[in-house]
């Protein structure tokens, strides 16, 4: 990230490793970070697993679930458990259940040991695990994060098979999968909507909720990062956000950065910045509320402060899960005073008029995973209304710098699947008729010596490397002939983006980006890609589909990606943190391009 760290832009939102402050704002807290305070729910989680229970870990976004799971992984792994961490939103490319089981088998084998199954005919989770798991360690825990990301087509089947595995724990041989396995299901979801009650593994799991910071936790946090001088601000911060983990760290971070300035009340200033939309936490939560009918209906009652808490009511429980409310003295009340002030208007009926297709769409932004999607939602503040056209759901991000932006997420990764980029973008172009199609997200780097995690890649050419001819040479040896279609960036947009990079003095890399169906995490395969395109600067999975669909409809496209790994077998290392950094960097550059008029055609 050398180029970015030399940036002269003082208000740059782009991240560099050097710019991290004492507190971790956004993304999971790295294992080695001191800015971490263990909370009581983590002990409950550990205790449940050592008592051989299964666990549902529910909590709001940005409440530290993934950070807690990472630490749980480390704790269990160093104490004799075999532990596999599976971020289910990272799964994609093919929607068959058998494919998913092979993916799961690979992920488990990588973390726990054992041999990943290659069987094409697998339909049983228990069988997949039986084939994969090593003899030792005997006790296995699967940490399944973001389970709501699983495709609906076979989600019930997966959960049904998990429930059957759970039920079989009391019989069979001692070393069988059911006797060895425990699961943690993490996320922000409604368990009742994942699967019917009688077939649900959640019904036999212990429910653990993430907890907010106490004032003492915040004191411990500032002590851990050796910023005790911030202690006087803790009561004010706590009163405003009641220990919400992300907001607490964000406000502490604001206060820390204000040191030496003449800021009269840095906490008040921080709260103003959050409320103004500079940070996207509130808008993200507002979107969650709007997207859920039960939450929309409940919010006015929550804000009234007189709603009796009913622990048998799914809506009451979900309000706690997304973090907008908490139970206190038998009432379900708004979680903190910041939310109370921010969501006051949200409860009014007129706010919930079903949105419709906007009159015009200037830029359609396409994403392919939750992290990319969250980055886009956070970066554009013109609005936040979902609308549907046909089978597709869009989010209208409103007018940003005079440009109407709408975004859609491809449910599946890759270009080829039934819900992957080619068909989704083709549908979207037909349905919302955008002037430009833009895709932002993450990629792997191919020029490791000149790139870092977060380096932004703008392909002036996309090569779909899957296409080729496999022939045989005279000696009988396999011969591969590249026939990959190449797609070129619109020259006007290309020129404007290069100008923007120069003006902003940022190291944006332009060049050929390879696009294919494989989630590459193998150095030998990565190197073989460079034989196809020696000049390639990076690779990813969806751009080929976006370009193909856009070019067919004669709509200009632009792809902005940033490096989240080097496809060298180390994808799992700080994966989510790196993906978040990369997605944020790519999105921020796109936002600046919109702001600078680079996409106004």
């Amino acid at each position, binding site marked *: 990230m050398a180029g970015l760290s030399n940036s002269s832009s003082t208000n740059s939102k782009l991240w560099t490793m050097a710019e991290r402050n004492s507190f971790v704002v956004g993304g999971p807290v790295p294992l080695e970070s001191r800015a971490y305070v263990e909370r009581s729910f983590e*002990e409950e989680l*550990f*205790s449940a697993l*050592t*008592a*051989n*229970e*299964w666990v549902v870990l529910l909590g709001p976004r940005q409440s530290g679930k993934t950070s807690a799971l990472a630490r749980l992984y480390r704790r*269990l792994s160093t*104490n*004799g*458990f075999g532990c596999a961490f599976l971020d289910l939103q990272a799964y994609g490319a093919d929607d068959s259940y058998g494919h998913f089981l092979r993916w799961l088998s690979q992920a488990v084998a990588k973390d726990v040991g054992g041999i990943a199954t290659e069987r094409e005919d697998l*339909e*049983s989770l228990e*069988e997949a695990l039986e084939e994969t798991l090593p003899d*030792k*360690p*005997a*006790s296995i825990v699967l940490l399944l994060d973001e389970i709501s990301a699983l495709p609906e087509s076979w989600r*019930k*089947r997966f959960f*049904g*098979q998990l*429930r*059957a595995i*759970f*039920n*079989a*724990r*009391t*019989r069979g041989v*001692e*070393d*069988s999968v059911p*006797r*060895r396995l425990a699961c943690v299901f993490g996320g922000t979801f409604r368990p009742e909507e994942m699967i*019917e*009650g*009688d*077939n649900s593994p959640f*019904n*036999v*799991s*212990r429910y653990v909720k993430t907890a907010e910071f106490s004032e003492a936790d915040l004191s411990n946090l500032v002590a851990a990062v050796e910023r005790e001088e911030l202690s006087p601000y803790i009561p004010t911060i706590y009163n405003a956000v009641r220990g919400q983990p992300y907001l607490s760290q964000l406000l502490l971070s604001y206060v820390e950065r204000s040191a030496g300035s003449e800021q009269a009340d840095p906490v008040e200033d921080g709260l103003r910045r959050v409320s103004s939309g500079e940070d996207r936490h509130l808008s993200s939560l507002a979107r969650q509320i709007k997207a859920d009918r039960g939450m929309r*209906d409940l919010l006015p009652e929550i804000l009234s402060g007189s709603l*009796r808490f*009913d*622990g*048998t009511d799914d809506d009451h429980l979900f309000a706690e899960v997304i973090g907008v409310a908490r139970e206190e003295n*038998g009432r379900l009340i708004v979680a903190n005073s910041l939310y109370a002030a921010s969501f006051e208007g949200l409860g009014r009926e007129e706010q919930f008029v079903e949105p419709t297709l906007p009159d015009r769409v200037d830029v359609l932004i396409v994403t392919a995973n939750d992290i990319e999607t969250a980055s886009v939602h956070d970066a554009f503040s013109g609005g936040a209304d979902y609308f549907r056209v046909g089978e597709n759901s869009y989010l209208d991000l409103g007018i940003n710098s005079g440009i109407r932006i709408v975004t859609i997420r491809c449910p599946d990764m890759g270009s080829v699947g039934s819900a992957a980029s080619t068909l989704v973008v083709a549908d979207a172009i037909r349905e919302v008729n955008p002037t430009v199609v833009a895709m932002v997200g993450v990629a792997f780097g191919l020029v490791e010596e000149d790139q870092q995690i977060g380096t932004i890649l703008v392909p002036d050419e996309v090569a779909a490397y899957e296409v080729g001819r496999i022939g045989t040479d005279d000696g009988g040896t396999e011969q591969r002939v590249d026939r990959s279609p190449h797609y070129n960036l619109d020259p006007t947009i290309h020129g404007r983006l290069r100008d923007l990079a120069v003006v902003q003095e940022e190291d944006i890399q332009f060049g050929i980006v390879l696009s294919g169906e494989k989630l590459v995490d193998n150095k030998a395969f990565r190197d073989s890609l460079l034989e196809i395109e020696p000049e390639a600067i990076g690779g990813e999975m969806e751009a080929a589909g976006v370009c193909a669909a856009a070019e067919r409809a004669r709509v200009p496209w632009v792809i902005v990606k940033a490096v989240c790994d080097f496809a060298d077998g180390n994808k799992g290392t700080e994966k989510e943190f790196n993906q978040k950094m990369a997605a944020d960097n790519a999105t921020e550059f796109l936002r600046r391009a919109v702001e600078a008029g680079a996409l106004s055609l």
Partner: protein
Amino acid sequence: MSLIVLADGRGVAEAPVRILQTLFESVAACMTMGQAEESALVDALESAVKNNGARNTTRSSLNNLIRLALRSDGQIGVDDLPVPPETARLALAGYAADNEDLDLDLAVDGSKLAWAHPQRVAVAQELKSDFDGSAAMDLLAETLALRDIQSLGSASRVSVVRTATRTDAVLPESLVIGWVDGEWGETEVQALARATREHVPGSRLAILLVTQPATADSDVVARSFQRNLVTTVVPVDLERLLTIAGSASPRDALVELILRNADLTKANPFSTRGVTRPEMFYGRSSEKADLLATLATNSAALIGGRRIGKTSLLQRSAELLSGEGWSPFVADLQEAGDWKSFAAHVSNKWDVSLPKTFAPSHLERLIEQLADRSQGPIVLLLDEVDYLLKWDQSHRGRIPPEAFFRACRALSQEKAAQFVFSGERTISERLWDPASPHWNFCRPLLVKQLTRADSDELLSGPLASLGVTFEDHEECMDLQWEFTQGHPQIVQFIGDKLVGLLNDRPSADRSTLNADSLHQIVDDDEFRQHYLTTYWGQATDFEKLLTSLIALGSTSVTVLRDALDERGVDASGENVAAGIRMLDLYGIVDGMHDEISFRATFMPEALELLGGAEQFVLDQLQTLDDG
């Protein structure tokens, strides 16, 4: 000396009364400061006044001599005691009677008292002077009748073996035992905990044989340390090993150590989630008998509410049927949402070959394959069948609806196989519908709450096997019945919480519970919440509304219908009767038409959590309006 009061150091405070009495046997009353403060001092003084300070010092002196002789020589005869033979015989007999927990053998004529297994005690004594971990392990294995000893190597100076136990509510099927010679501490305990998790699936308990007990201020005796371990490790030093070796019930002696030293969350016999372990399965004798009798002529369906124990009963029934000469085949159909997935599941599970385009007509082929390799008549036990049934009933295609269950009925009527289905709402509704093929095909067997005796046993039995008793047993059992009405999952919930209470107590104070302990649990909102969600299970909003109206005094279908009408809810008598029938299935009410009453009698009080029955009626009416 008649009285000693001991200052409470950490070790002394946690010492059981029995140990103190052994240590100071010649003292009439011995107690810690804590015990003195509670009531022991007053009791001792009252007793001293009553007995005028007199006590039989001869008896206690003789007991001391007997104890010492047993320890050093393994036996003692009347000639070894400095009293006339008749007195000596009485002393030996008295010692044996007072120490029933010791593994003693009194000669028929009372002339000699010896260890029943003198070799065990001798080895334990020898180990104290010359420790050999392997020999200590062998002694423990022999004493506890452990089998299949298998070395797992060593970890941080700890030699580790895996053994098979006669599993019960407390002891796991495989018990890991480690031993270490010399100094030991946190590192060795952690190494054994880790090794246990590495080698034995789900094992929560391990034993560490050591030469010396942990010091009172050692980390390894701190509860917080045990809670941080992935497996709770119970240190057994040589004195404790001697106690186990000389115990009439070595298993109980070991469990006493577990109770006092383990993190009980990991040695908790209760399970509040999922299928009950065979060791924890209590009662259901009439349901099992009904099932056996039914299968002689018909198929059966086990129907009942959520968490009532259908799956556990189905699994235990399979074992019973096997013993009765049937050939049972069990399948959990959680994931079988259509015929094809049913075929895929059972093909794999029962190792049969079925066409990929499986249709109900292929069931016959399935039964033929099973019959070819079975001795007895075939019975298929199909758990969680609602999902498949729903699909079978509603699919549209070339084959008519409910073809799967029609095929089952044909096979049952031909006596080719019998079926036992288990499910909840869907199967119940089909069985109650005279137009359904299920109506006269399989006999519904309702799985409701446990009987009072079984419910008592489900709570007190596992606690007893952990060495825990109720001070006021009858009162506590009355309370458990009042608050559970025999719902097995709620009984286990209370048991689980009671073990949690014990776990928070000092070691010496873990062996008894009382009515106050039960009240601590049931008076909490968490219990009410659990009670409501468990009993209601998958009840609809309408059924919840009926529940609250019954709590307000409506006790017949007619009155309920009027009460609904008054509140603007248009419901037919049939609708109300169907709702009541489902509440009856859930074990919430008894009676169907004119005399409806709560079987789950705590329900009105549990509804207080939601603002009371009246408030809940209003809330439900609002919910129904919104819906």
